[in-house]
């Protein structure tokens, strides 16, 4: 499309084509509907213009017509709903094999951390043909991560993680915008998504420094003293964290929750909120002690801890009976 008068955004992800197809469908139906109404009004307004001597007919109505033009459009709208919901469902269900990238938003920049340790500011390099899942949080107010070329957007909230996933298809440089008003430099909080062929991406990745994110997390786990209580060899004062990621956890008050990113993050910042069954509430809070980036590293580390071999001290994390309703931590 013209750079001077863009009428359509680039298509650079697997979802872009689907969203465009749905959009065109709605454009067509709406166009037809608009044309029908405009024409009907124009034709009727001219055909029945006042002619001296010709009286208006007082017509009460027609229930059949009313029902038809209520029910038929409703069913047409249902097609919009279903197709839209299918796309949305896909967009909100990240594939299990997606590479993860952590994003921290702050007024007014995007801080990006790849698992391999690469850090970027306001730029995100990704390879084509690879599912990428962004795990995002904000340090201050609500922002929104918007990539028009991928047709996706997700608000980024303080105090919890939200996620967004995509699979890029076309190499190039695409706009990244903040799409939730966040203060003075909201419109300057943009950047680029740089999509590269896999071999170029690998080269770019290799050129950078840093340890993988979970390595940083592992170091923090030791220096912050977490390892003192959360031991993996013998029963410590805190639960063994081996293999807990995405597993159900039985809490003191009887609830069962899933140990996802938000759970791990909350447990570090607000340990007494959810106490694991059989443990005392002795863990101190790390609010104000760890930054959002350090939190991401710790979360990445906990997620990387593998399932413990059978017969070790990890078993008390499993609920005694099968859980009735595992609650997803929002």
């Amino acid at each position: 499309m013209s750079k001077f008068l863009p009428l359509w955004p680039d298509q650079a992800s697997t979802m872009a084509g689907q969203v465009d197809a749905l959009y065109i469908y709605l454009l067509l139906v709406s166009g037809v509907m608009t044309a029908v109404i405009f024409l009907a009004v124009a034709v009727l307004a001219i055909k029945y213009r006042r002619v001296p001597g010709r009286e208006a007919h007082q017509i009460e109505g027609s229930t059949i017509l009313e029902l038809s033009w209520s029910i038929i459009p409703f069913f047409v709208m249902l097609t919009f709903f279903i197709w839209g919901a299918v796309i949305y469902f896909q967009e909100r269900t990240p594939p299990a094999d997606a590479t993860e990238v952590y994003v921290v938003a702050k007024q007014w920049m995007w801080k990006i951390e790849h698992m391999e340790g690469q850090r970027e500011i306001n730029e995100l390099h990704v390879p084509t043909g690879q599912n990428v899942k962004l795990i995002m949080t904000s340090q201050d107010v609500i922002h929104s991560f918007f990539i028009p070329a991928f047709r996706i957007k997700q608000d980024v909230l303080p105090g919890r993680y939200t996620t967004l996933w995509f699979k890029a298809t076309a190499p190039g440089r695409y706009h990244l915008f903040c799409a939730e008003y966040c203060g003075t430099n909201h419109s300057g909080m943009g950047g680029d998504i740089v999509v590269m062929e896999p071999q170029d991406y690998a080269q770019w990745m290799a050129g950078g420094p840093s340890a993988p994110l979970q390595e940083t997390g592992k170091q923090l786990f030791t220096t912050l003293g977490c390892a003192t209580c959360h031991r993996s060899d013998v029963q410590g004062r805190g639960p063994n964290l081996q293999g807990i990621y995405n597993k159900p956890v039985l809490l003191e008050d009887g609830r069962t929750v899933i140990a996802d990113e938000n759970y791990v993050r909350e447990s570090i910042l607000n340990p007494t909120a959810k106490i694991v069954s059989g443990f005392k509430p002795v863990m101190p809070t790390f609010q104000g002690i760890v930054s959002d980036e350090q939190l991401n590293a710790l979360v990445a580390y906990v997620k990387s801890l593998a399932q413990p071999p059978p017969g070790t001290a990890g078993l008390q994390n499993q609920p005694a009976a099968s859980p009735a309703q595992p609650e997803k931590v929002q």
Partner: protein
Amino acid sequence: MASTAIPANQAPASTPKLNYLNNGHTLRSWLLTTDHKRIALLYLISVSVFFFLGGFFAMLIRLELLTPEGDLLQADTYNKVFTMHGMIMVFFFLIPVVPAVLGNFLVPLMVGAKDLAFPRINLLSWYLYVIAGALFLHCMINGGVDTGWTFYTPYSTVGSNTNVIEAGLAVFIAGFSSIFTGLNFIVTVHRMRAPGLTWDRLPLFIWANYATALIMILGTPVVAITIVLVAVERLFHLGIFDPRLGGDPVLFQHLFWFYSHPAVYIMILPSMGVISELITCFSRKRVFGYKFVALSSIAIAVIGFLVWAHHMFVAGISLYAAMIFSFLTFFVGVPSAVKVFNWTATLYRGSITYATPMLYAFGFIGLFTIGGLTGLFLATLGIDVHVTDTYFVVAHFHYVMVGGVLMGYLGGMHFWWPKISGRMYPEGWAKLSALFVFVGFNLTFFPQFILGYVGMPRRYWQYPAEFQVLNVLSTAGSSVLAVGYLLPMIYLLWSLKYGPIATDNPWNAAGLEWKTSSPPPTFNFDETPVVTWEAYNYDEIPDVPLEAPVAR
């Protein structure tokens, strides 16, 4: 267009000796009036002031957006400008305008009553509006507010260093103005209808304002308490919405949109009521499917309360909640569509003339159709993820609010101008203004649909260079639109002194308001009317010939 012989009861008379306008000339008789018609005029003046103030801010926005760089205003100033444009237009113009100006004037007249149920509360309503407006002006002079009209937390409670509490308080007080107006309308319609005026004979403007009043009293208190909580959190550093203190910023959005979505129906329903009045009068026939049109207003009011989270599809709500709200949102489109179809069908076998009010009605049907259809795009989850928080949304809501509400209001103002002022407006100038409005409006806002889909986010002070051409088109349109709004200001005021004197019923319209003089006496009717006919049934209404209105 040929004119016909004018029946005797339509002969132009001199302005009636004693009417509500000249019954008392002192400032006190105006500022302490309990006459609903005078209160409507007080509202007309204050609402118009805010409209032009909000319009001035719109002009600043469009001027800034002529160029991709932020070069006219500083970023902070721009953020305040769009915030105040939104707050003024939503809370001080769109929500009150049709109910408080046309509704206040017409509801008692249309039901055959001498006044609203609670005239003193009506006056209080106006004073609350004025106090709220003064407070808001003070807030503006003191540096303004930059949270966006939506006050999202935690930016509004912790992030912004502008006058959030003062602006919130102004909105809170304006909300009570709205609540009291709604309360008055409901009681009036229930308890003060003229003999013979059963519910199924009520003018559709009444049905529309009744449904609006239901939303006003149920929804407004929720935004009131939400604003109180924001103010309290900001003042005392509580943690209701701030996650660092244990709160949830998304809860704010739920509470806010629980009112603010129904609020848009407060804005559009009365205008839709106006359109029903215009179409029937200028087609000389009853509306097609009266029951369906009447009940569709109620349906919109009820279903409108069930869809608020369609503003939050990417806000972090659960997948399943999003699906439910998307599904429900499609339901609310059906009654709106029914209205459009019924109005169109009313034209069939009518006897149509094209006075300015009818032109606005045609414009409404066209623009509301487009605006409403684009609402379906936003209800569709897969599309909304891409276009939410972009100019697509901005275009959508301006189509329904400006292309819808404002067109209905202007059409109504022209239609009832003779009744309100006793004078006719100049038809030629009025038709020209309508054209300016229609053309200017489309040129301003249609390019914004494209801008949104290509990815320009909203509330942007600066933007990538490739978006410039579309922005320039939009700004060009807005200058045409501005002319379209300024002209009526001028010629309506001009007509007060120089316009031809109006008869009781210059349009030969149905409706009890036309059975009294133009302007009406203070107590509306010399004798209480008795109603024996169905609404707009021109075959049955006494003293209203089927002849078309005298063309100009």
